[in-house]
């Protein structure tokens, strides 16, 4: 049997490998190369060295602001989505009537595309804002920021909740029984058993929210489109605007994208290190 696997291993891996190469490795390498180029179409690019990168940092107003805005968004977004999702998961693993219905309902927003969500939430939020403050979401970056946070929570919580539920359900019941017999109260059981045991889920969920909040584009595009005056542009939207805003600036957009990737990788590695360290066997 083992021999068999070894013999045909390459044949079975090949299609996936090819797809991975075409859809991931080649674009990645090309993307990095193009960030050192001036180009209009990808096929005729001219190498210009580091000038694109220099421009990105010179043109600090756009990129650095977007970076800062994204980080602010990510911090609050990661915390709020994970806390709420975890709380819901704990609630919905208790023996309450109708857990399945609730799980489905909470999960559903995740099935709606970002652009649609953006427009729906724009309507909802504007309806409220116009009533209360007499202005719409484009009026202030604060409105836009909290609008994005609400949208992000609404969309992500259900998905994370499912992961947490799976984590909680995989904890052996005897652990809880033993703890109960030893006289541990509900709070102790939550912090001493449930939390450490679902650490793997926490790793996954924080990673997902981290990358998703950094990569967020369509929700941002539909909800605020950067208004007012690009103050609510997140990194992805800023890169998009740079790439297409002026002809000949594709290289600079590309350079921004490479920097963005590096920043995201750094953050993700740090996050994985921290949460992994807390996982228990």
């Amino acid at each position: 049997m083992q021999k068999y696997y070894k013999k045909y291993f390459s044949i079975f891996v090949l299609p996936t490998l090819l797809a991975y190469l075409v859809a991931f490795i080649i674009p990645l390498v090309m993307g990095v190369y193009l960030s050192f180029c001036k180009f209009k179409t990808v096929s005729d690019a001219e190498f210009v060295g580091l000038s694109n990168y220099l421009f990105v940092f010179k043109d600090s107003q756009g990129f650095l602001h977007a970076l800062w805005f994204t980080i602010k968004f990510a911090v609050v977004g990661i915390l709020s989505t994970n806390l709420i999702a975890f709380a819901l998961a704990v609630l919905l693993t208790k023996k309450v009537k109708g857990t399945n219905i609730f799980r489905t309902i909470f999960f559903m927003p995740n099935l709606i595309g970002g652009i649609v969500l953006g427009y729906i939430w724009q309507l909802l939020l504007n309806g409220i804002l116009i009533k209360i403050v007499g202005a719409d979401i484009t009026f202030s970056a604060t409105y836009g920021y909290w609008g994005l946070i609400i949208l992000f929570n609404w969309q992500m919580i259900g998905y994370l909740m499912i992961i947490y539920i799976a984590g909680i359900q995989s904890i052996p019941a005897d652990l809880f029984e033993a703890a109960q017999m030893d006289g541990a109260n509900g709070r102790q059981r939550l912090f001493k058993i449930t939390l450490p045991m679902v650490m793997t889920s926490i790793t996954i969920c924080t990673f997902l929210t981290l990358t998703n909040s950094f990569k967020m584009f369509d929700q941002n595009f539909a909800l605020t489109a950067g208004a007012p005056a690009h103050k609510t542009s997140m990194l992805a939207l800023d890169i998009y605007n740079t790439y297409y805003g002026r002809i000949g600036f594709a290289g600079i957009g590309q350079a921004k994208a490479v920097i963005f990737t590096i920043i995201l990788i750094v953050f993700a590695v740090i996050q994985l290190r921290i949460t992994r360290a807390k996982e228990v066997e």
Partner: protein
Amino acid sequence: MRKKLLSVLLCVMMATSMMGCGKKNPASKDTEPGKEKEQTDNLDTKTESRYDGTIYYLNYKPEVSDAFQKVAEAYTNETGIKVKIETAASGTYESTLTAEMDKKDAPTIFVVDGATMLENWKDYCADLSGTELYSYLSDDTYTMNDGNGYIYGIAYSLEAWGIIVNKAIMNKYFALENKGTDFTSLDDLYTFENLKAVVEDMTANKEALGIEGVFGSTSLKNGDNWRYHTHLLNQALYWEWLKDGIDITGATPEFKFEYAENYKNIFDLYLNNSLIEPKLVGTKTVDDSMAEFALLKCAMIQNGDWSWNTIANTSGSVIKPEDIAFIPISTGVEGEDKMGLSVGASQYLCINKNASEEDQKAALDFLAWLFSSKTGKELVARDLQFVTPFTTMTDSIYTNPLFASENEINSKGKVAYPWCTGLIPSEVWKQNFGANLLLYAQGQMEWDDVVSAAVADWATEKELSGMGE
């Protein structure tokens, strides 16, 4: 059991929806085959060499994307040659073109929208001087050329814009007993002073007129703000460059925004006499405002003749074609009473130089067919509704009521504002200006700051666009 049933149901739904998608494409049922065949004979000379590729046209105008599908179908029915017409989403033409040009089957026919864009795409434009399409042109001014006979692009659609008014509501106003002005006809509204007086008096009488506001929403949502950051700016650009004697067919000139006060005049008038509060314009789209106009909630709206389709196709549209007319945009500049609408060829057809000889020829044959054959001309006039500069099209009949209004204004001897906005240095400039206009509308930015930012930005963008080359 129930779950199984559900999953079966879902599977069936998926399967049918997929089938639905598949079926749509080859459909050619609406056209009457007999009628088309009659005209094939006069085409035979043009298509004697059998071409089995696909003509790929990247369309600029989202409002006619459906109409273009009919065109493609009709051409395939007549000649057997496949035509693929894709449309870029509003405001993304150049980026879509950039992406498409990278592909192996790049567009053979594409569109360039002005001098700035031509600079970027010159290398892709084949010389059209010897073509049949070129021979149809009534005048060389409808081309983009290098001055030495190399034709980069040929205009295919002349567009006009101004303020579209609802004549029925206007007449109601002119007939009001207690109105505060003496004006009685649209002809009186060719200067800003008069327009302002009438608009403000109409706002005061809006209940009597049955409207919610004189102007439709000033749509300043990012991506929907082109009516203001580009079109409305035309007057300011025109007067400034006229005064400075600048050639508007050349490269992007300097811009001092000397007529900023005039721009503010009309922009304020829009904001203050609209059916929504100025603070709420940030999420309004062009479609929103066109719908307001179509549903008779407002009496005026700034837009161009291309918007007739949007108005007519708004669901529940109650406006009558005969009630629609243009008046020019006036801003309070001396001599503007002699001016008409902003008119120009905004877009030019170009042939991709890098396409194979065969592809180029097929594409040119297609264009010649579109603007000279009976079927083609009918499609252009009835469905695409392009006013073309081609002599072959002079006998066509149009249904768009705004064209009639344009002709009427022309016949009064009014001078058209030429299209100056093609010289705006970059999309970024427009975006920034649009964003600042929104801040101004919301009361978060002073007008002087909007002006100085626009001027400073122009200089930066002009330099950067040069750098991008």
